[in-house]
């Protein structure tokens, strides 16, 4: 299922913002390369706010202890468990839609 989080304009270029989707906290990033990525908003290391992290086109750095995560895969480059990845796309009218991947467990 896809859920709208509003207009692309509500996402500043290069930054992340947090949205609540079905009780999940999702950090959504709009990269300078024009992509939109969505990952779980809480750092698995110590609960840091991922959306507040510095990001580039590939990774985001958690602001608390500088753990690095890939935006596209959620994988950590600093030895932490991965972030969950959500599907994200922008419609022709500029609306950002998030989808949860098919849930693995019931």
């Amino acid at each position, binding site marked *: 299922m896809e859920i709208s989080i509003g207009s692309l*304009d509500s996402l500043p270029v290069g*930054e992340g913002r947090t949205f609540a989707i079905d009780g999940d*906290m999702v950090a959504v990033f709009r990269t*300078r390369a024009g992509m939109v990525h969505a990952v779980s908003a809480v750092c698995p290391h110590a*609960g840091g706010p991922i959306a*507040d992290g510095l990001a580039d086109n590939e990774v985001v750095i958690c602001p608390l202890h500088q753990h690095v995560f890939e935006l596209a895969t959620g994988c950590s480059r600093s030895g932490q468990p991965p972030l969950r990845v959500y599907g994200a796309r922008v419609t022709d009218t500029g609306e950002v839609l998030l989808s949860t991947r098919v849930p693995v467990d019931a």
Partner: protein
Amino acid sequence: MAQRLVVIGNGMAGARTVEEILERGGHFDITMFGDEPYGNYNRILLSNVLSGAEEESGIFLNSLSWYEENGINLRAGIRITRIDRFAKVVYGDDGSVTPYDKLIIATGSTPFIPPIEGTYNAKRGFHQGVFSFRTLDDTRAMIRYARDHETAAVIGGGLLGLEAARGLLNYGLKVTLVHAMGHLMNSQLDEQGGAILKGSVEKLGITVELNAMTTHITGKDSVTGIKFKDGRTIPCDMVVIAAGIRPNTEVAAASGLPIERAILVDDQMRVQDEPDIYAVGECVQHRGQTYGLVAPLWEQAKVLADHVTGANPRAAYHGSRTATKLKVAGVDVAAMGITTPERDTDEFVVFAEPRKGVYKSVIIRDDRIIGATLLGDVSKVGFLTQAFDKGLPLPEERVRLLFDLGGPPAEVSAAEMPDDNQVCNCNGVSKGQLVACVSAGTKTVTGVMDKTRAGKGCGSCKSLVAQIVEWAAGGEVEEDPSANWYVPGVPYAKPELMEAIRAQNLRSVSSVFAALSPGGKEDAKSKMGLVSLLRMMWGDEYEDENDARFINDRVHANIQRDGTFSVVPQMKGGVTSPEQLKKIAEVAEKYDVPMVKLTGGQRIDLLGIRKEDLPKVWADLGMPSGYAYGKSFRTVKTCVGSDFCRFGVGDSTALGIAIESRFQGLESPGKMKLAVTGCPRNCAEAYVKDLGVVAIDGGKWEIYVGGAAGAHIRKGDLLATVDSPDLVMQLTGRFLQYYRENANWLERTYSFVPRIGIEKLRELLVEDSEGICAGLEERMQEAVDAYRDPWQEGLEPRSPGQFKPSLPLLPLPMVPVREVHA
């Protein structure tokens, strides 16, 4: 069919040689015979087993499974009695006959047992209570016996005897160390050094008897005492004989091989005139020399392996210059070359401090080190060993051979040590090899030790190995070109980066990436450093991009562990007023601030503020930002100065406020924490600040730079003493601007100042030797003029959702709220 290789001896030399052979891909069917029923262990560490510092399992170098994995037939517990060099077979004491194509003799040494009456018992070898100290079994037997006996005599005041005496103390024994010579460790130390070592050993509780030739061990059923040549007796119920070692040449002698003091070998480690028999380790005599240390043994093993495998048929051993560094009975000892001067023209540099057990001597001939002894403090052993080995040029001031005079601290020495400097003297591992291993991906100390074998000999270099590995893995490896880059994603050092930015007129972080990074690639890790640099360079012409800022700089507050923020209003010089305090109190109540705390920088911290409340908090406070969150000018701590304090000699409060007013909030490579104090009592801790000002009598002010009292502690260096507050302001401006322009990203002044050097800074900033001061002052003025208080940005967000919460669903706060009790 593979050639048959037989090795007699499964000690450190035999096993190490086989390892070297395997490493060269040598194809042999290998059979190893060992006297002892174990795999190969580190004999040097037996003293640690005796003292209880190490478990038996910790000293094994090759476990039994290692032999299996490498297809080696280990015949542990079997002694070879004879070699038939014509039939090319060896005979074992179990009746076995084993043929060989190549034979290696590595029978090591046996303890030297001086002729002392009563040592042996006709029925059982040693008399009850007499021990030698050579094998694991010896060690176990000593431990067992020591547990239920009370007094021990150790015969032999060399390395082994000292270690045995020290180890036995741990079992509650009263220990007497008996030495036939006039001073301890006489083959490594001169008389004075030996005397100081004696003092250190006695402090441990060991009684030392010198010039004591033992002639009798007394006791009918078991030991009751020993008797000296001069007739004196000492009662004891245990005797350890540690009077040195002798090459074990028994098999070689029984088989007709050439022997003098040990088995004679040529430069390829072949037994003289025997093309198929090699010998290695303590049992050999090479060019007249025998060795009792591991370092030469490793060198021999390499040559032997090169030759027997054909990897390098021209490999040759030329003998070793032996330098020892060890910890004996808890005392650091290093010795190399000769122990006392031999000619009138030999230079002899000596330092002795018996009270602290420190002794250092160096013997120099024709400007080269030919001998050195260090006792109690071996910090200079690295350089001395290198200089001794390679004949390095020596400092004109000879005292520098013995001491670091204002030299770099230890962590710098790991960085500055030349790559070919040998770190592990046991296994011959250089700093370069360690660094290479780290670069190849091994980032743990133990991993590097496993791969390089560094620290696997006597273990005394472990801490140095750890330092080097940590240093190498810390992102500052010399071979790594990015170490010099200002930020990791843009391949330029700071000066070149600034030049390119200026030449191409790059005013935003994204434009720097587009123009200067490989492929125009963005790099999140580089953004903060670039923001700082560009703001410093362009002032208000900098093109701000919110996504390049760290979260603290996006919302002008310091992020806390639960995602809330701390807010610190400016409080110049730590001086406040009832109005300010009332306002802060109102805000704290209104926003339900969980904690209000005083900071170390004399300000008030409101902790646990939610991100969405930040703009409202600033508006309600109506105070400027105290910048407690950035890599920037933070605060000027002051004391109450001359207005109130009866000791104050200068108005430190007013000057502190003036400095803070002028330089507030300026971004910099690292934090800038300052202080001004009104007298040398230094209540404002100015000696340990990035820049600290101290008022001294006569209306003068001292300016210290490069101090720190955080993770690093450093007293600042005196930059200048000036006559007026105006000059303090001027020099402060010059120093801060020079630091801003020249320090690396995140390089605090405590590293920057020593890196540049205080003399150099004085020339540049006080004497203006290169004419840069006018420029520094001008650029600092521009930066001051461009300053805008970030809390006055207003309530309008600079970017959509700037203050939108990032984690509202988490239960807040995670930081426990403390109740304040009256």
